């Protein structure tokens, strides 16, 4: 992959609990804002689904709306994973765009 991913993940294991901090680069346009120059409404563009899997098993699944901030940040915790396990975060937005990134648990 030459293109830089829209996702940044940090997953750290401590005392049996993995804490994930994830940042997604996304405009999260509500569809309510107007372009100040043209006066036209900027079309809605926001992430609707976000899923995290560890070793192919789902740990969290989120449905999100326009009220999640631009460049969304998520943090969550789960048990039962080991160092070096692979986790994958994926998102899909209302325009059909999507991205995913895999990271190793540290």
């Amino acid at each position, binding site marked *: 992959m030459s293109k830089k991913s829209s996702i940044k993940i940090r997953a750290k294991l401590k005392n049996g609990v993995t804490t994930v901090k994830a940042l997604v680069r996304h405009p999260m346009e509500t569809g309510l804002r107007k372009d100040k120059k043209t006066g036209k409404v900027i079309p809605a563009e926001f992430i609707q689904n976000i899923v995290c899997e560890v070793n192919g098993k789902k740990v969290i*699944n989120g449905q999100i709306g326009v*009220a999640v901030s631009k460049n969304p*940040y998520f943090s969550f915790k789960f048990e039962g994973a080991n160092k070096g396990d692979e986790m994958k975060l994926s998102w899909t937005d209302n325009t059909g765009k999507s991205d995913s990134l895999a990271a190793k648990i540290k």
Partner: protein
Amino acid sequence: MNRRVFLQRSLATGAVALAASAGLLAPSTVLASWNKAAFEAKDLSSAIKGAVTGDAPTESADIKIKAPDIAENGAVVPVTVSTTLKDVETITIFSEKNGTPLVAQFDFEKATQPFISTRIKMGKTSNVVAVVKSGGKNYQAKKEVKVTIGGCGG
């Protein structure tokens, strides 16, 4: 109607019927499901009803909402919801006075701890409401956040 048009149309209706029956058979397994009605609900009570199945939530002191008392910028309000309730199935976050109060809903698995942290937009000073589904019952808690500059619209 010529033959080509007829074929196209029958194919199209066939595809729609197939999609509909697939949806009826397994509504929960459809990928990228998004609860449009709940996300578009204009007031808190209908947003809660749309997003959370089961009984109306009861107040609970076991849900902790961490959010600032005063948010200078309503476009980025950090919110963390955690709870000591067991068997948490979902945590749903609402911002009461937003045009559409439902912010986000997270489904938890057994291994996932009942903890979620994110950043939300708030149109004006309002309660942040968290509804937790635990063991088939619904619980809620709220916290007021004073917003100096709203974060919705332009």
